[in-house]
């Protein structure tokens, strides 16, 4: 039978979104393989989490043991290895997350599994599992087939799939921990939260960029309000830093920082070559500028040609509403 085993992920008592996102994919694959979806949850006192997952109409296998309070690659690997032997799933799925990348490759080597990391699509064609993944930061797609094997392994990109809504209630089954005693090759020490007030824009996930088009520092709140709603950090063109609207370490460009946010929303920035050089690592660029010929538009994914003062405050409001 071609079952699909999905490894749920949680941290600090919270189920991570990827766990559910994978359920957008797993059922159709399981069906094509003629099996069912099993979600594996390793943790300590994770009853409610198990129920939540089961609410998506899947079977949840729970190992509830203080040994699994925090993620540990060695312990996870031991358990998965044992459960792959016991349950013989046709496919194992986990997230391409800080946890998944720390675990999946080692597991693949240990068990000799066909392994495709960071997938954004998955199909079964004539019994063969085929994954889609991106190369060259999304400029090329690759179709990769897993050779015939008892078990294959893929890791799924975060946010590549929309988490399905809860459906019917599935079953929660507690299973014995295959791990009888603690392992001490690798010890979890602690979590450290990001320091607040100490922004390093090269590490920011979302950036709001301001340029000379903002005109005066009294307009700064326009950008700050937007940044607050979408949890972005502020950065700027040299013009904006020169004007003292932002400290120098927020300057983006050849003589500033090179940034690589997932989202860069810039307003009143013309897109001078020296600025563009610093944002080439940005995944999605939104440009708001009143000049239709501003070079920034050649770089942007989304463009609004208008006065930023007419657009940004409303955008902030709409985002507030939509995000609830």
């Amino acid at each position, binding site marked *: 039978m071609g079952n699909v085993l999905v490894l749920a992920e949680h941290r600090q008592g919270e189920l991570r979104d990827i766990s559910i996102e994978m359920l957008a994919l797993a059922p159709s694959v399981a069906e094509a393989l003629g099996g069912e979806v099993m979600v594996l949850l390793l943790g300590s006192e994770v009853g409610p989490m198990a129920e939540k997952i089961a609410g998506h109409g899947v079977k949840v296998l729970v190992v509830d043991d203080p040994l699994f309070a925090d993620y540990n690659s060695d312990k996870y690997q031991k358990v998965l290895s044992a459960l792959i032997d016991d349950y013989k799933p046709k496919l194992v799925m986990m997230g391409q997350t800080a946890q998944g990348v720390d675990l999946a490759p080692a597991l693949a080597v240990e068990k000799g599994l066909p392994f495709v990391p960071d997938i954004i699509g998955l199909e079964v064609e004539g019994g063969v599992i085929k994954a889609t993944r991106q190369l060259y930061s999304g400029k090329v797609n690759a179709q990769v087939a897993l050779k015939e094997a008892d078990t294959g392994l893929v890791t799924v990109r975060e946010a590549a799939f929309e988490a399905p809504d809860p459906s019917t209630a599935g079953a929660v089954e507690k299973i014995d921990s295959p791990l009888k005693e603690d392992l001490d090759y690798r010890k979890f020490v602690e979590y450290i939260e990001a320091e607040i007030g100490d922004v390093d824009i090269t590490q920011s996930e979302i950036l709001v960029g301001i340029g*000379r088009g903002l005109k005066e520092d009294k307009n700064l709140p326009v950008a700050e309000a937007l940044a607050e709603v979408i949890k972005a950090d502020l950065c700027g063109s*040299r*013009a904006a830093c*020169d004007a*003292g609207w932002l400290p*120098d370490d927020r300057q983006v460009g*050849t*003589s500033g920082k090179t940034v690589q946010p997932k989202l860069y929303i810039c307003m009143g920035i013309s897109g001078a*070559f020296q600025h563009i*050089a610093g944002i080439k690592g940005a995944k999605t660029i939104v440009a708001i500028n009143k000049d239709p010929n501003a070079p920034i538009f050649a770089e942007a994914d989304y463009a609004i040609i208008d006065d930023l003062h007419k657009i940004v405050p409303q955008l902030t409001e709409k985002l507030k509403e939509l995000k609830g």
Partner: protein
Amino acid sequence: MMRGMKMTTENQTFAEKFDLLGCIQCGRCTGGCPVTVRTNLNVRRFVYDAYDEGLLEELARVTDIWDCTACHTCAVRCPKGLKPLEVLIGLRSLVVESGKTQPTVRDALESTFMEGNPWDKPRATRNDWMEGLDVRIAEPDQKVENLFFVCCTIAYDPRVQVTARNMVRLLKKAGVDYAFLGTDETCCGSEIFTLGEDGLFEMLIEDNTELLNEYRADRIVALSPHCFTTFNTHYPDLNKPVIHYTQLLAELLEQGKLVFEKGLHKKIVYHDPCYLGKQSGVFEEPRRVLQAIEGVELVEFNRNRERSLCCEGGGGKMWVESESKIERLAETRIKDAHALGADIVAAACPFCVLTLDDALKAEGFEEEMQVAEIMEILGELEEMQDNSSSAQEVED
């Protein structure tokens, strides 16, 4: 060439290399240094302190050394013929050799080493500016009169690519025998030298000399004053002369090969780029070109020719920001131009165009005034012609 300019051998002391003993501490260098109005740089002080070898490391850590724009005013003014700025560059070298440069400088240097340009662009795309133009590319065994050297900034920065594009159109129109280099063209090293990367600069000199000597050209025409001056001062083994494009244009005008049939009724103030004027003594040719346009009223800055105010674009400053929040020199320059009532600030250097254009926007004068490369102005004339008459000479 000049003293202190020749490549030094490793075992020379700092004082010998820069002739520090020759300094009489007259202070003319600092007195003329334009950046003193906005930074703490005191170049005389460095010339004095660097005499003490034990102090060098400490001096190299002073961020002031990165404020120098390599305008060469100090060298022009020094009564003893020293090049005070090269002491600062020597200190920058210590930083570069230690590997602990600012990341922006590191990236520019690495890109120059790997791809032949400081802009982090692939070598393979160096000629992309030619798109849509039919440009003659030089072949080593083919004789050509004028071999063009474009410059990394003109080749890659869309704001100034127009310099090269308009040049191609003008050359065809004037029937000039020309060719451009292919993607083999490699950074001249002007900014690499001022950033203090001696080893890389030496490598560029060797590679470029070898490359350029291969071509059977009568002369090299550089579009940027930085390449022009660098070839003429740092490349002892080049086998052909190097001129700046404004010199070629002046020549064409004189020979009657270049005629501007259309006029331009504008008040233009010409900004002398440090690398063209102060450093290479080309003052009149650009002015002659502008004056040849009918209707142009050419006015002068108070600080013109040898006394021209530096725009702060050179000296590696494209990659190093000064901490000072005091008005940029380019802004001062733009204000001066505005006070003169100029319609256009003309320059013949990509760095000047970039810095002045930026300053123009900072001052909010976009509506009243314009910053333009001379080739940009000529291109506009050309366009006016294209629009007004249908029977233009055929391009080749």
